[in-house]
């Protein structure tokens, strides 16, 4: 059953169009993450789902009911804001129950619901405190409690973790994920952090300049990015995008790579029928850093493993791994090696290219080929 459906939604402020026809459908229980760089319209879209922003044209349905002109309080949604937006003059209990009170729920029932939610979020000892007496993480919990207590059809999260420090952000991320798994609720979550998107989502909608770039599961976005923007945005370090020429090598499509010492090598990209038309033409090769490895950490069951000596320009140790930068076709290319692989700056290393996950893009349209 479709829980939220967004059909050809536009938003314009005067002549400036900030959303140019968005179509998204999610099922009940889905965790949709809207992700994109700032100014891509993701927060505007969330506000439109919440009813805090009007819809210029198009249609938003919640459980098959068009809510375009429904007041925010009657859409059966609850929202967690970036600044938490707790009412500073009320204590935690009042903050959580305010929405219920406005809906004229009897006091006794309100108490029960608040107690239930407080227990779930482990904020019972804080109920009598004012928001100013809470830490960032505690405020975050209270803000979630305020949303949970309403038991809405859809939860909306507007960059809820961006005000927390790095460690707490990771903890709260896990907590949100647990909560979603336990309650099975439908969630729409806005963030600019692609790691948050990858870890939390069951579906990601990636936006840029008011246009939906791709909608899919995290794995789809990661492995089959629709275009170069999606490829570059998802993943850290981001995908290497290397201009190359597609050639036929033994009847199979391959890309020609020129190393720093001017020697070239051919990397077959697999026999995808769509590639045939591109032979002899320039393409952009997309390779994730983890597909460029040292010999020991290569994915052994991959049918498309190729080895070549490459000069290491820079190494960036991260502890577990070391990111080695090599030069291919005049571009800096990042590979992900084991820390113990022995990569040294200025020396050659035997590098394995796992071409199973390689993708090709059209340099003109920036769309994926195949």
């Amino acid at each position, binding site marked *: 059953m479709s829980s939220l459906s967004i059909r050809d939604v536009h938003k314009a402020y005067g002549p400036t169009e900030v959303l140019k026809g968005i179509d998204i459908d999610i099922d009940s229980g889905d965790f949709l993450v809207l992700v994109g760089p700032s100014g891509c319209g993701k927060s505007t879209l969330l506000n439109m789902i919440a009813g805090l922003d009007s819809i210029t044209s198009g249609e938003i349905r919640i459980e098959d009911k068009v809510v375009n002109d429904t007041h925010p*309080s009657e859409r059966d949604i609850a929202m967690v804001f970036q600044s938490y937006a*707790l009412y500073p*003059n009320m204590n935690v209990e009042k903050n959580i129950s305010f*929405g219920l009170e406005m809906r004229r729920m009897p006091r006794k029932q309100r108490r029960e619901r608040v107690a239930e939610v407080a227990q779930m979020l482990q904020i019972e000892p804080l109920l009598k405190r004012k928001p100013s007496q809470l830490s960032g993480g505690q405020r975050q919990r209270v803000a979630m409690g305020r949303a949970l207590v309403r038991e809405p059809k859809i939860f909306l999260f507007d960059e809820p973790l961006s005000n927390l420090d790095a460690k707490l952000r990771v903890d709260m991320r896990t907590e949100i994920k647990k909560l979603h798994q336990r309650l099975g609720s439908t969630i729409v979550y806005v963030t600019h952090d692609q790691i948050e998107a990858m870890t939390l989502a069951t579906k990601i909608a990636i936006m840029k300049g008011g246009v939906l770039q791709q909608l899919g599961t995290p794995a789809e976005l990661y492995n089959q990015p629709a275009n170069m923007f999606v490829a570059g945005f998802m993943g850290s370090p981001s995908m290497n995008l290397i201009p190359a020429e597609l050639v036929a090598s033994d009847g199979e499509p391959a890309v020609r790579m020129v190393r720093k010492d001017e020697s070239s090598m051919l990397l077959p990209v697999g026999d995808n029928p769509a590639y045939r038309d591109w032979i002899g033409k320039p393409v952009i090769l997309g390779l994730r850093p983890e597909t460029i490895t040292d010999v020991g950490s290569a994915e052994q069951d991959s049918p498309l493993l190729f080895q070549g000596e490459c000069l290491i320009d820079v190494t960036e140790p991260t502890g577990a791994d070391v990111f080695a930068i090599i030069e291919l076709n005049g571009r800096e290319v990042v590979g992900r090696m084991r820390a113990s692989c022995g990569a040294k700056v200025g020396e050659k290393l035997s590098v394995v290219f796992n071409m199973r996950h390689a993708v090709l893009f059209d340099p003109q349209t920036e769309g994926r080929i195949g």
Partner: protein
Amino acid sequence: MSDTTRTSGDWLRQNLPRLVLSPSFAITLFFVYGFILYTAWISMTRSRMLPKLDSFVGFENYGKLWKTLNWQIALDNLAIFGTLYILICGVLGLLLAILLDQKIRAEGFLRTIYLYPMALSFIVTGTAWKWFLNPGLGLEKSMHEWGFHSFSFDWLINPKMAIYTVVIAGVWQTSGFVMAMFLAGLRGIDNEQLKAAQLDGASAFQTYRRIIIPQLRAVFLSAFVVLAHMAIKSYDLVVALTGGGPGNATEVPATFMYSYTFTRNQMGVGAASAMVMLMTIAAIIVPYLYAETREKRHG
């Protein structure tokens, strides 16, 4: 040679703030605090037309003051004026601020209009309202000329009502300022809280009553302190508008103090009344300042 220049330059740099501040510090110390002490001393002497510093009588003048009918009238009037002035200014200021906060067009222009009376001196306000409320000159005459012959508005010359005209003029002058204070407070409230309230299903009225106005507590306090001390000090407005009259119907402590000190040859009693006013204002302002500075030290 160069060493001594450097040290004298250093000395100057270190002490420049003190040097610059010291004249005004000395002047304030002498003319404000010195004369407060001087007045306090006079209030305990038998001074009549001129200060007589050697005739100490203790608190006799204060006793006299509280038995003076005029002082009682002045206090009654202050109670009426002060209460209404603070209340109406506060309510009107808040109301105007809320209305202006509705994202209306030409807000800057309207804000200026409401704020402008504050730029006038109370003397100008008093004189303008005196003309406007004068039955033979202003509102009443105009209404009569337009044909409303039964219209009557004689508060200015009615001893029972004259103090309320002072309230009207005072409110007209100050409510814009209070509005500006409240407006600044309203603007300081996080926009997301209002969105959250909307999602929680609170009506506009409930949002203001339950969420916004409780957050303006500090503004209410500031407004109260500003208005209260203005009410107690108010002198020029009364002098320009009613001159304390008709009779002594609009006598307030400040006009009482002036007339006893400088025209009725009762300098001792006048000084005593000045001290009572000072204590009253101090009772309002000192706790406020204390709370303010303590808050800053904490945060």
